[in-house]
């Protein structure tokens, strides 16, 4: 049902230069069930990607998001597809949250023509232009100025929409963030810098890379809010709050306290720089899906069996998408040269390969 329901976040927000929003979050049974479904689907999808990687159907870099699902889902619950999102390479779930399809995702991961980037991008390069998802970026931190530029365009076009520019705790030490934040503050841009603090940048713990790992305060003169990123309702509340705030006052920072279960990428077992106890502790006590499952059960919104059935369905949905993606054709040699340049102005751009202009002279 869509009857209103109010739930308290388990951890308070920690504010910086701003009054924290209320810990009581409005939701509804339907919303909670959707949260469960969407997060469980992401979890399933990432596990499937792991298997495909091990089967060598996905190659190169592949960064999984399991553990962090509440951030992608809570954020989407607070905004519309006219708002923009940009993130780094750990982008599968953000892409799906933006309305990307499983088929396009798995096709891209396997380097097929039906991929959202025609197989040219790979895991780190998912985009969905029509829903304002600007990628998927491989250079740590470099997506943040892009995000601020997207917010600039929103202001330029007088849109009343905002941009969420996401980055990690490791990325938080990149100078370009500080530059872009200052400019965004000067220009009053509607941009929210979302630091997904999963406490490690590859093998480096946050405190080894940052003298001050209080990322919500790192904007100095820019307001910030620390949020329990494992609690989808807290994320939703914070993002709604931030959207309103930045439309009126210019940029702010949201630090999402979260955790990645997998290693950094597929070559990292994820267990040399942190203890297994740490991981299993988070899984047991803070898992974002289990938290919602408990809420649903304790409020009698569904039975355990119903939730299990949903999970079964999702598994099938994912498997079907993978099967279909496997049938997607490999790129054609000619694809190598398209999309380097846009042809324009009525004249032929000669293209990347000089050979293209080996014309017979008159």
């Amino acid at each position: 049902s869509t009857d209103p329901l109010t739930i308290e976040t388990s951890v308070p927000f920690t504010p910086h230069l701003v009054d924290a929003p209320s810990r009581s979050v409005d939701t509804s049974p339907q919303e909670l069930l959707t949260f469960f479904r969407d997060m469980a689907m992401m979890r399933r999808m990432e596990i499937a990607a792991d298997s495909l990687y091990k089967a060598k159907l996905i190659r190169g870099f592949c960064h999984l998001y399991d553990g962090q699902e509440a951030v992608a889902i809570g954020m989407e619950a607070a905004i519309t597809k006219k708002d923009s999102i940009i993130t780094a390479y750990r982008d599968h779930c953000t892409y799906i949250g933006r309305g990307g399809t499983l088929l396009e995702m798995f096709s891209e991961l396997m380097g097929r023509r039906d991929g959202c980037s025609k197989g040219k991008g790979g895991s780190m390069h998912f985009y969905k232009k029509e829903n304002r998802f600007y990628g998927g970026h491989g250079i740590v931190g470099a997506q943040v100025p892009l995000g601020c530029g997207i917010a600039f365009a929103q202001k330029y076009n007088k849109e009343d929409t905002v941009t969420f520019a996401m980055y990690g705790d490791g990325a938080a030490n990149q100078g370009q963030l500080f530059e872009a934040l200052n400019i965004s503050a000067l220009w009053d841009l509607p941009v929210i810098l979302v630091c997904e603090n999963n406490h490690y940048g590859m093998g480096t713990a946050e405190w080894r890379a940052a003298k001050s790992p209080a990322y919500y305060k790192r904007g100095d003169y820019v307001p910030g809010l620390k949020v329990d990123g494992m609690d989808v309702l807290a994320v939703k509340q914070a993002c709604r709050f931030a959207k309103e705030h930045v439309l009126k006052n210019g940029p702010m920072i949201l630090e999402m306290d979260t955790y990645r279960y997998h290693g950094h990428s597929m070559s990292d077992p994820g267990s040399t720089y942190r203890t297994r106890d740490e991981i299993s502790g988070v899984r047991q006590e803070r898992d974002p899906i289990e938290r919602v499952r408990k809420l649903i059960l304790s409020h009698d919104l569904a039975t355990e069996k119903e939730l299990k059935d949903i999970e079964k369905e999702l598994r099938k949905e994912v498997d079907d998408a993978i099967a279909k993606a496997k049938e997607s054709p490999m790129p054609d040699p000619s694809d190598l040269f398209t999309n380097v340049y846009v042809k324009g102005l009525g004249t032929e751009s000669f293209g990347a390969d000089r050979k293209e202009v080996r014309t017979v002279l008159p």
Partner: protein
Amino acid sequence: HELLLFEALREGLEEEMDRDPSVCVMGEDVGHYGGSYKVTKGLADKYGDLRVLDTPIAENAFTGMGIGAAMTGLRPIVEGMNMGFLLLAFNQISNNCGMLHYTSGGQFKIPIVIRGPGGVGRQLGAEHSQRLESYFQSIPGIQMVACSTPYNAKGLMKAAIRSENPVILFEHVLLYNLKERIPDEEYICNLEEAEMVRPGEHVTILTYSRMRYHVMQAAKTLVNKGYDPEVIDIRSLKPFDLHTIGNSVKKTHRVLIVEECMRTGGIGASLTAAITENFNDYLDAPIVCLSSQDVPTPYAGTLEEWTVVQPAQIVTAVEQLCQ
């Protein structure tokens, strides 16, 4: 009407800003102050500070922001106060500006223009006297043009703004005050076209930007000495207009390249490679390439002069080539 090169750039900019509300300008001191070389003078007053944006000294971020804005369909013109400062934004230019169209499978275009003064000026010191074409030319997905006259400055500015590709427009610190009469009617130049400066029969001289004037100075002497050089301002540094270049090679059978770029990895090296690959059969002599020296540009006037190619060297090179 007659105007100076910086005014021609400004005129092109203004016409495009009038024509298309999605065109905006950002950079250091481009608004309030009117631009270090006055290319944006008066535009802030006319278009307001949402379309003409002063930035802090944060090249990496504001270039990135321009690229982000371009992803949404805006057409930002990013000014490097000196083009060399944009080396701080190299990652944004190479990885984002040059590659996003491709990595997104064509979903996003980056219709940005990156422009500003470069080249060796008058004793501006190493960092401010750079020959940057070499650093940028390998970046996939970007086009590069160099303007050299008020006419082509305006025409290339307009074409660059309208292009759906990211374009780097190289201006030269020493050419901003060149004067020329240009048409009152609207025109644009082709971004991929070379300019025939002086048709001739004996040798093809390929050049661009400020070296065009050193070449033309040498050409006078050469004509007096009985040579008939063909001078082409290649203008499009990437991709090359191999059509015009090839036709010329076919006619003269001899090529001299004169550039201000670095010897190693410069435009001249790329041109040499492209001509060797495509038109070697037409060549009667090996290509000669005069570049500036592979040294950080020294401050002292004498040393600086020896760094870049001088007209006398061009004369000598042609004489040897045409022996």
